[in-house]
């Protein structure tokens, strides 16, 4: 079942188009990450779903209700959408408990507050004031507050951007666990590709106001639609190639080619798909090495003079000047006009 469906949304600010033909379908119970560079319209899309902004055109359906479009515009307070803000937006004049209970009506307020506090692992902090909490705790309260009224969907706007790096890693795992435990349908906006890939069930890559590719993280990562998506979602090596029937010739060797197109193409290879093998007199030479502990990134110069990156495990240790031969285990072929 589709929990959120955005159809053909346009939104311009002044002359600047923030969204143009924006389409997004979020399956019920899944976590979708809306990822793109700044200015690609992610936050605008989120605000339109939440009801804080109006589209120039198009519609948003949540469950079986059209919340905006076709002449309707349901105000935010009746959309049953939980929102987690980038700066958390905890009410500074209310306790943690009052913040969480704010959206819950009536008798079960206290009970509900206790159970979401437990869900986010903050039992016992109900009487604190927001400013007495750490960034990570504030984040959890914001999430608890959004989940408390049992919304149909939860939206998270750059939820981890205000946390420092070690906290962020932990919060990513925790937020995913909490959302899954709550059985929530969630959309979260981020500009950080590793966050998008690690937290979400489905990644929707945005560029210039529209979603350019959607799919499970591993699929989008391994088979990006074009060189732009490839380079946005991770490191990529692009080499020019020439396609013939069944085969592509590149400086890294020839690869099998299933597509029908022939002529000049671009071949995208992730650095971890390139394996250097030490070989005296090999065709390529190691130029530089960045060692990270759990892995290392090598810069390798091909016989043609072009340089490519290769990410390998901590071994073998290859020094600049070592000669290698290269093996490639995956690749993606783009027609040359795919570069936008």
């Amino acid at each position, binding site marked *: 079942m589709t929990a959120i469906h955005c159809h053909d949304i346009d939104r311009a600010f*002044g002359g600047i188009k923030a969204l143009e033909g924006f389409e997004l379908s979020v399956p019920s119970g899944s976590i979708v990450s809306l990822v793109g*560079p700044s200015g690609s319209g992610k936050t605008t899309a989120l605000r339109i779903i939440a009801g804080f902004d109006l589209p120039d055109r198009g519609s948003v359906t949540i469950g079986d209700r059209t919340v905006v479009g076709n002449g309707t515009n349901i105000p935010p307070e*009746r959309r049953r959408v939980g929102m987690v803000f980038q700066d958390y937006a905890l*009410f500074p004049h209310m306790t943690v408990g009052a913040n969480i209970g704010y959206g819950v*009506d009536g008798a079960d307020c206290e009970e509900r507050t206790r159970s979401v506090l437990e869900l986010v692992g903050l039992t016992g902090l109900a009487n604190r004031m927001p400013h007495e909490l750490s960034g990570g705790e504030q984040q959890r309260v914001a999430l608890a507050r959004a989940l408390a009224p049992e919304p149909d969907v939860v939206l998270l706007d750059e939820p981890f951007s205000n946390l420092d790096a070690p906290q962020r890693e932990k919060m990513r795992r925790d937020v995913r666990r909490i959302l899954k435990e709550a059985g929530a349908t969630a959309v979260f906006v981020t500009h950080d590709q590793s966050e998008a890939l690690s937290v979400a069930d489905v990644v929707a890559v945005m560029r210039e106001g529209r979603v350019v590719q959607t799919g499970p993280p591993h699929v989008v990562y391994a088979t990006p639609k074009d060189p732009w998506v490839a380079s946005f979602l991770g490191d990529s090596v692009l080499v*020019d190639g020439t396609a013939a029937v069944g085969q592509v010739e590149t400086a890294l060797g020839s690869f099998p080619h299933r597509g029908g197109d022939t002529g000049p193409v671009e071949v995208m290879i992730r650095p971890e798909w390139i394996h250097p093998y030490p070989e005296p007199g090999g065709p390529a030479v190691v130029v530089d090495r960045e060692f990270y502990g759990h892995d290392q990134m090598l810069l390798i110069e091909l016989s*043609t003079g072009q340089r490519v990156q290769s990410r390998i495990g901590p071994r073998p240790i290859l020094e600049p000047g070592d000669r290698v031969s290269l093996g490639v285990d995956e690749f993606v072929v783009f027609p040359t006009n795919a570069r936008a």
Partner: protein
Amino acid sequence: MTVQIEGRDDLPGAKTPAATRRPRFRAPWWLWAAAVVILIPVLVPIAGLFVRVLAASDSAWNTLFSPRTAELIARSALLVTAVTASALAIGVAAAWLGVRTALRWSNVWGVLVAMPLVIPSYVIALSYLAASGPRGLIADATGIGLPVLTGFPGAWLALTLATYPYVFLITAASLRRIDPAFEEAAAGLGAGGWRAFRTVTLPQLRPAMGTAALLVGLYTLSDFGSVSLMRYDVFTRVIYSQYSGRLDRTPAAVLSMVLILIALLLIIGEERTRGRATYYSRRPNRAPTHRPLRPTARAGAYAFLGSLVVLGVLLPVGVLIAWVVRGLEAGESIRIDWAAVGGSIVASTLAALIAMAAAVPIAVLTVRYAGRSTRWLQRSVYVTFSLPHIAVALAVVFFAVNFLGPLYQSLALLVVVYAAIFLAQATGSAEAALRQVNPSLEEASRSLGRSALATLTSITIPLIWKGLLAGGALVFLTTMKELPVTLILRPTGFDTLAIRVWSAADELFYARAAASALVLLLVAAVPMYFLAIRNREYVS
């Protein structure tokens, strides 16, 4: 054939300017209704005044073009020019000394020099009247009979002392934002001292000085209390005597309209020049430096600032106290008039509460729904505040007599008019407070199921409460000191301390006037304390 290694830094993506990311929602209609309703009791009568004058008989138009009107304009212009010039000179000099030079206790000086702000201009006028003259305190104490300080010199002195603190505060704030490196650069280029100040600092201060000059000009144009005590016939005094002394009130209406038009010209002129002026509001990126003064210059600086404190605060308050003592010694019956104290407090409190209530919708509209129509709303609030109050009060009287029968001379009408006139003070601090509230707090409340109105009452108002209260305190203080609107609109038998001071002084009962003035200053000190000590950040 090329090989490319693409990083993620050079990705395209146009950044949407934050300013254009404004929600396009219309403000709820009830917000507009609540914002506009408070201005109606003032703006409609002003429009009515214009209609009345334009529809008036030939004799009324003769008033307008009489030599007497021309003379009035000339006298008002003279007083406005003189006061503005002297207040600017004193205020800018004091600000420069306080901010840029190495004086001892510069914070204390800052507070002391701004102090006359608390003292109503008519109280300053009263104290100088009571000090000078053959029967005055100075003659008493020294035996030297000074001439009575009345007319133009008296009005000039009283108004300069009442207004230079505005110039001081505005230009000092602006000076703090100007990087002292500019002056040092000028000194490095061979322009020291005065020349650096005149060629580098002064031009950067010009926008602030323009704002301050407008404020002083409007204050002088509108002031009724001190010119009437000093018996200097400018617009406000003549309007009042025409109004109170004659059966035909049309001449008063005509003069009020002219006065309003002059004030509007000033306001529009300032807006125009401000549009063209460049603002140099770059924050200095280092601690301010203070220029050391040579011993003689330092002595001069202390003498200058000290004389401001003496003339603006110590002398007026001292004279008041001395007159009360003198009156008591002479067996005059001086007692605290509790009815007037009560009247002042009741009227000021009601005005403050109404202004606070009205400030909420206006602040929400201008901050959260900024656009062309909210700019007009803001401008109307500001213009209402800036127009000469005596003219506005007369407009209300004319309107109330004709259309509001039972409300004429009621306390309700009086406090509503106070609130409308002083609204700008309440909205100013409410807007400043609201600007510090992250809009996502309100959005969070909406997405948690609360309506716009429920969000306003449970989130927005609690969060801007301090700012609202500061604005309310300011309105309370201004209403306490208010004179002409009270004189014209008060219910029969209703008294305030301001009225008591003015009428006793006008009848030369200085001891009685001084007693009421001292009580007025004491009562006014309560909100002043609150504003200055507790809530400094919300007062602009």
